[in-house]
């Protein structure tokens, strides 16, 4: 009998199979739907709540804030919870034995698992972003027609209506909104890689989740706090500075990916700067996956 297999040192097809398998696994998990439902609820409530304010442009801001909040929460929680159990579950269930007994390099396994989880995040973010853009556009157009009708009917305060129309025009779907969403995605991907790394040496899933959340929280807050200290005191002293450096060394800087607040305020990020952030995020992913691999390659199953 002839062996049917062809072996290659690195096979994107194998990584793809593992990624698709992970995608199936997460999609068939109930938690995933819960999170999606959660974001739908937020979007819908954004639509309902907007009648609350006076300023038409503020209505669009509410929708953006709510949706980005949902996306951030989904991305953060999903990146941690889904990746934290990816490998430990395979180890515990001994599914890993059968997978690695096939000609699958351990790096491909890690990469496939990681990409599968990220695929879920990226796909659901894309869906949410699309939803947001469509709803935002429809709402914007509705408000614009409303205001334009006022203007055409010769309503008083034409000059103020013109300002509102300008504001509305500037607040629709835009590329900077997409960069903000992409930054949320990127942050989730970095967080996923960090979590995957932690999970390769963690003794339990709970430990991984707790450590990952801590890394995320500190990595998020630390740059702001350090920035404030540096700005408010003349000198920090060498000991404090050394401490800051150690913290910076250990904790990923998640502030780099925080564009949402400023983008919602109407600021635009130059594309070149966005690509720098993208490069930074991808470097994090590569390095943490590599670190995860070093530990995982050596793991006794």
């Amino acid at each position, binding site marked *: 009998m002839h062996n049917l297999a062809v072996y290659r040192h690195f096979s994107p097809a194998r990584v793809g199979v593992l990624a698709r398998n992970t995608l199936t696994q997460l999609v068939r998990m109930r938690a995933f739907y819960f999170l999606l439902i959660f974001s739908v609820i937020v979007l819908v409530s954004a639509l309902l709540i907007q009648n609350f304010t006076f300023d038409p442009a503020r209505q669009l801001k509410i929708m953006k804030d709510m949706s980005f909040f949902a996306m951030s929460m989904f991305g953060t929680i999903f990146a941690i919870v889904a990746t934290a159990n990816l490998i430990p579950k395979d180890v515990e269930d001994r599914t890993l034995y059968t997978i690695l007994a096939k000609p699958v390099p351990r790096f491909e396994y890690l990469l496939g698992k990681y990409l599968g989880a990220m695929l879920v995040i990226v796909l659901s973010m894309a869906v949410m972003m699309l939803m947001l853009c469509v709803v935002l556009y429809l709402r914007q157009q509705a408000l614009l027609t409303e205001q334009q009708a006022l203007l055409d009917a010769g309503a008083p305060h034409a000059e103020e209506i013109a300002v509102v129309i300008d504001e509305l025009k500037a607040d629709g779907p835009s590329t900077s909104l997409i960069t903000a969403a992409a930054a949320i995605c990127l942050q989730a991907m970095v967080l996923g890689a960090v979590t995957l790394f932690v999970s390769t040496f963690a003794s339990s899933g709970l430990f991984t989740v707790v450590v990952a959340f801590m890394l995320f929280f500190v990595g998020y807050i630390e740059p702001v706090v350090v920035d404030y200290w540096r700005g408010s005191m003349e000198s920090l002293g060498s000991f404090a500075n050394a401490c800051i450096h150690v913290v*910076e060394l250990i904790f990923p800087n998640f502030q780099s990916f925080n564009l949402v607040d400023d983008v919602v305020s109407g600021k635009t990020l130059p594309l070149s700067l966005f690509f720098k952030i993208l490069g930074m995020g991808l470097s994090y992913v590569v390095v943490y996956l590599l670190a995860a691999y070093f530990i995982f390659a050596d793991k006794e199953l």
Partner: protein
Amino acid sequence: MTKARWIACAVLVAFGVIRIPIEDRLAADLKAHQFHEMTIPDGSMREQLGQLGAAAALGGFRSFLATMFELNAIAAYRESDYANVETRYQLVTQLQPSESGYWETAAWMMDSNARRFYLGMDNEVDVKAQGKRGLLAQRAVERGRRFLDDGLRYHPGDYKLQIALGNHLVERQRPADFCGAAEAFAKAIEARDDATLPTRHHALNLALCPGHEREAYVKLRAIAERLVRGDYPIPLDQIPASLILHMRYLEEYLKIAEDDRFPINLDVLRRLYARLRPGFDPATNTDERHAHVLRRLEDVLAIPEGDRIRF
């Protein structure tokens, strides 16, 4: 620790050493594009601490939280709970000072809505009799002004905030500061192309600013000419009365020769006076310009002393 773990640690530390300077530069780049501006330019220490506390506690959801607290504030507003409206808006503006609309709404909530409420202008009950109300209204106006000033520190050239400040200076402040208002409107002009509204208000206030009468007259005439040409976003039948009145007043004041005056017949002014006079109550009026306009109209139309408004 196994060898693999040491290697992993070494990789992460090496990456840290490489990335930290890059991240510092990235942070600087972001700041250069007005991203991540979390410190207040020249705010008080207390405010800075509040800002930091908020930033630290809230991380990336400042915009979202600002929205939530504004909805909260609006709920309080619907119940006329202005004490809460104020504290909520303080929080909202501290959470997202970069959103100029929050400062403007906050100021409007206080110097207009809260003031009207305390003066009992929206309620049937005569609250003015209850002495303290006037004081509360005055405080609300001051709070509104504080929001405007703080907001303008973040957004020195903001169109809406400068207009709000201009209006505040003449409508809420006693005595009215026409010169200051003219200056505020002048700043708003710069923020927008073809900013007819602030241009007009700038000229109108300048007319009442001592020493600037001639300058104001030139500006008002330019507007009037545009209006007559039909090259103005306001239809002719909605022409603000004050525009013509101020021009008339300045022509008198500057003793402009009859032939050089802007041609408006007295009939138009008479109809204008008839339109404005009945709705005017000196007891509740807060718009100094409005009173000014009527006083000038009475002068120009030579209304007999007994029929004039008693201020």
